[in-house]
C-alpha cells in the first residue's frame, strides 16, 4: 500500500511530489529542496507562473515537463504581471459564471534576479493592485542559471563572476537589497523569510501566505552548491548557519507588524558560515570583521523594528 503521508510528530506531510523526480537541478541544490517543500505546502489546486531561471530550465525542456500542477512561464521579469493576469482572469470568469467557484491558489515563483532586479517593477505593481497571490522568491543570491553573476541580492563580500574578488576588488561591495522590507513597504498582508533547513517553518509560511487574501511575499534562502561553492551535501547545515549567525533571520511581517521566529540569545560568529563557502574564500580578516559589523547592524535594525511594531 502506498504511503499517503509521512508523520512528523503531529504533522502530516504529503508524499505527493508536485515537482516530478528526474529534474536537472544541480546535485544537492537547496533551491530544488525549497521548491519541493513549498509545493507540498501548496498542494495541487494551484496555478503557477514561474520566471526564467534555474527553476524553469531544470524542469521544462521541450517536450518534457517536471510539473504536475498547471504551470506557465513566459519571460524573466514579468512573473508578477503574469500571475496578476491569471488571478484577474480566474476571478472574472467565476464572476461571469464561466467557471465554477473553486479554491485555486495563484503562485508566482522567481529567483532573486527575477525578483529584486529585473522584475521588481512588475512585483511592485502586483502588490499595489492587491491581487490575491503568493510570490515566492527563491534566493540563491546571484544569477545562478546564467553562471553566477551578481544580483542585488548578492551579499556584501561574496565573489561572483561580474563582481569577482580580484587584486583590486573584494567582490560585492554593495549590501544585499532587503526585499522583505520592500515588500512590507507596500503594506501587503503577509511577508516572511524562510529557509529549507527549517522545513516546517517554511511550509507553514507558504501555506499561510497562500491562504491569506491579498498579496503575500515569501523570501526563501536557497543555498547553491555551485554558486556558493560548497560540497553538495551541506545545504541543510549552511541554511542553519545562515539563520544562527543572523545573516538570514527568520521573521514574518503582517501589515507592518513584526514577529521574529527565532531570536537566539547569542548569534554564532559569521565566520562559521562564511568559511564553508568558496565564494567568500578570498576575504581578509578585516573584511570578515566588516561583514560581522554589517550582520550585527542589520540584525539590530530588525530587532528594533520588531520591538517598535510587534505583532
Amino acid at each position, binding site marked *: *500500500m502506498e*504511503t499517503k503521508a*509521512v*508523520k*512528523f510528530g503531529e504533522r502530516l*506531510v504529503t*508524499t505527493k*511530489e508536485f*515537482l*516530478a*523526480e*528526474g*529534474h*536537472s*537541478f544541480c*546535485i*544537492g*541544490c*537547496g533551491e*530544488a*529542496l525549497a521548491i*519541493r*517543500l513549498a509545493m507540498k505546502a501548496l498542494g495541487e489546486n494551484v496555478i503557477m507562473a514561474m520566471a526564467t531561471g534555474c527553476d524553469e530550465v531544470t*524542469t*521544462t*525542456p*521541450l*517536450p*518534457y*515537463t*517536471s*510539473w*504536475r*500542477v498547471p504551470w506557465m512561464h513566459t519571460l524573466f521579469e514579468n512573473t508578477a504581471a503574469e500571475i496578476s493576469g491569471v488571478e484577474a482572469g480566474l476571478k472574472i470568469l467565476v464572476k461571469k459564471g464561466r467557471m465554477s467557484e473553486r479554491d485555486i491558489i495563484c503562485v508566482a515563483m522567481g529567483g532573486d534576479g527575477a525578483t529584486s532586479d529585473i522584475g521588481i517593477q512588475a512585483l511592485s505593481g502586483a502588490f499595489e493592485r492587491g491581487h490575491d497571490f503568493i510570490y515566492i522568491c527563491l534566493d540563491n543570491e546571484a544569477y545562478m542559471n546564467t553562471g553566477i553573476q551578481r544580483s542585488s541580492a548578492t551579499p556584501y563580500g561574496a565573489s561572483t563572476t561580474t563582481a569577482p574578488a580580484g587584486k583590486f576588488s573584494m567582490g560585492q561591495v554593495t549590501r544585499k537589497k532587503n526585499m522583505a522590507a520592500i515588500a512590507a513597504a507596500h503594506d501587503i498582508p503577509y511577508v516572511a523569510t524562510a529557509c*529549507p533547513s527549517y*522545513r516546517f517553518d517554511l511550509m507553514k509560511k507558504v501555506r499561510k501566505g497562500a491562504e491569506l487574501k491579498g498579496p503575500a511575499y515569501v523570501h526563501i534562502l536557497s543555498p547553491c*552548491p555551485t554558486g556558493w561553492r560548497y*560540497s*553538495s*551535501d*551541506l*545545504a*541543510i*547545515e549552511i541554511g542553519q548557519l545562515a539563520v544562527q549567525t543572523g545573516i538570514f533571520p527568520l521573521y514574518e511581517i503582517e501589515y507592518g507588524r513584526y514577529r521574529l521566529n527565532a531570536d537566539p540569545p547569542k548569534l554564532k560568529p559569521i565566520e562559521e558560515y562564511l568559511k564553508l563557502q568558496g565564494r567568500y574564500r578570498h576575504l581578509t580578516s578585516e573584511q570578515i570583521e566588516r561583514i560581522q559589523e554589517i550582520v550585527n547592524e542589520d540584525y539590530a535594525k530588525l530587532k528594533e523594528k520588531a520591538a517598535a511594531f510587534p505583532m
Partner: protein
Amino acid sequence: MADELTWKDMEVGNIVTEAGNGSFRKTGDWRTERPILDKEKCIKCALCWIYCPDAAIKPGEDGYYEADLYYCKGCGICVRICPVKAITKAEEEEK
C-alpha cells in the same frame, strides 16, 4: 526523444499536455557516490526523505526510507542529515 520529432509533432503553442512527463529522466546516472542505508540503525525519522532535493528517497513498504537509485544524484545530504548516521556513502562502481 526531442530530436526525433518533426514540426508536425509540435503542439499548439508548444504546450506540454502530459503532466510530469519528464520523470523518465534518469538522473541517477549523475552519481559518483551512492547512499547505503543501515536498517539496524535507522529510526525511521524521515528526515532523509523530507530533505532530499530530488525526492529520490521513497517510503518503503517496510516503513524504511530508501534512495531510488534511478533518480538519486548522490548529493549526500541524507548522509549528513541522518541523526543516527544510518546512511553512509559508497563509491559508485565503474561501469
